[in-house]
């Protein structure tokens, strides 16, 4: 294996959706007896090829439904590819839809521990890190209160802090540059810049093309699950803006 942190070759992902209203067991059984095939195969991604080297920042652009989030899920190992090969060296820290999966009954600190461990850390290392995380999120005083007492902005801050305080080899950022109030947006942007400048390999998905221009070293353009272009930021962005 070469030095690529991420290598994607001939990646293809198909999934099956059931036609009509067959989301009940009753209907599924009836259609199976009548031998009606309700399954439709959808090709979500096809012929995707790219590599990301250490320290590179790859931005993925494309319209809604282009397959950006699906590609991120494959890179974070959540979805196995239908065909093709994905190789990733090291840990992936996903930063997707902040706060999804937090438990409102648990305290901020308990959520930090749970998510930190879920992302592959030991309980011990998270115990010591939780102080730092709470401090960065500005939640030191509320950290032992149940999460249901937090405002949505506080939850977003906490989630962002947990994800960015991971020791990871690949950072995945999905549409989170525009979260929270102006002050928090500024703070989170600085934090991401810090991580990128530290040489963290990053995959960035956003509709904010100015951010792409500022942060990315190369861009992958997807449209309806197909790879339209891959190359240096400026070149691909110019083409994308004209399309």
């Amino acid at each position: 294996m070469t030095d690529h942190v991420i290598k994607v070759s001939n990646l293809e992902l198909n999934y099956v959706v059931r036609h009509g209203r067959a989301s009940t067991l009753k209907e599924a059984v009836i259609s199976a007896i009548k031998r009606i095939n309700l399954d439709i195969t959808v090709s979500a991604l096809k012929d995707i090829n790219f590599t990301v080297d250490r320290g590179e920042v790859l931005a993925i652009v494309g319209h809604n439904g282009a397959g950006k989030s699906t590609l991120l899920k494959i890179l974070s190992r959540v979805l196995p590819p239908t065909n093709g090969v994905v190789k990733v060296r090291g840990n992936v820290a996903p930063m997707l839809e902040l706060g999804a999966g937090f438990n409102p009954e648990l305290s901020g600190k308990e959520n930090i521990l749970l998510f930190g461990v879920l992302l592959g850390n030991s309980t011990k290392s998270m115990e010591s890190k939780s102080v730092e995380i709470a401090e960065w999120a500005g939640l030191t005083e509320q950290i032992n209160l149940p999460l249901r007492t937090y405002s949505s902005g506080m939850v977003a801050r906490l989630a962002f802090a947990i994800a960015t305080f991971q020791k990871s080899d690949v950072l995945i950022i999905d549409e989170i540059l525009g979260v929270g109030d102006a002050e928090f947006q500024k703070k989170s942007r600085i934090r991401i810049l810090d991580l990128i400048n530290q040489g963290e390999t990053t995959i960035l998905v956003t509709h904010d093309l100015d951010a792409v221009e500022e942060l990315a070293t190369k861009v992958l353009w997807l449209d309806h699950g197909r790879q339209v272009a891959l190359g240096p930021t400026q070149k691909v962005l110019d083409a994308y803006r004209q399309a």
Partner: protein
Amino acid sequence: MSNIYDSSARTNYFSELTTYLWKQRDLIKLLVKRDISVRYKRSVLGLLWTMLNPLLTSLVLWFVFVTIFKPKLADGTQFAPYVLAGVLIMTFFNQGFIGAAESISGGVGILQKVYVKPQVFAVASAISNAINFLLGLFALIVVTLMVGDGISIFAPLTILVVISMLGLTIGLALMTSILFIRFDDSKNIIAISLQLLYYLTPVFYPKDILDDKVRFVVSLNPLSSYLDIFRHVFANTGTATPIDWLYMFSTSLVALFTGLIIFKRFWARSVVMM
């Protein structure tokens, strides 16, 4: 050393899963702790509720049946601990099974975003219900002693029932979680089946009041064996034959392996559909 993910690598499912579960023991511990603490935070009585809940359920059954029948079964067994043992086993099974299945179907939000093998959730949920069951044993000890019965010296063998029940509930939950994710109406069907299973287990009736046909059906129900063994080792009431032991261990293993294989086959397809 950083780990390498290669989607084309072929590994042995069972050995990989076992290693994975061991590596994730911190996560399992935390999930168990979360399950238990969330359960008690919601109730005013806290930990006491674990003991009160089966006790009150048994009290209702006991009251109904003692006013109809007698406080003792025909063979001299006290009815109160008999019912409580039944309720504890059925609670362990029902909540362990449904809890583990829902830990996956309800955890889809997280499972779609972070790479965690979903089996971890099922294992943690089943373990927290096993702990719940073990706490409930205190209530059973109190009731058994109150009616003047003794605890058997073989009571520690209850742990074999617990381990078998873990295998059974995890296996069934893995199969069912796929149904829960795919079909909206599957929860109702499972709920009705569980109710039927409850009546086909000798929880609050002695087996010898049944006629031969019904007794045969009841003895085919694996939970009858689990329950007979539990009552027998715990307070030396009733009988447990070697067949019961064999049936308990084999249904546990078969459920676990079938569940693991079915889950592996359908999980990726199900998660991609959402």
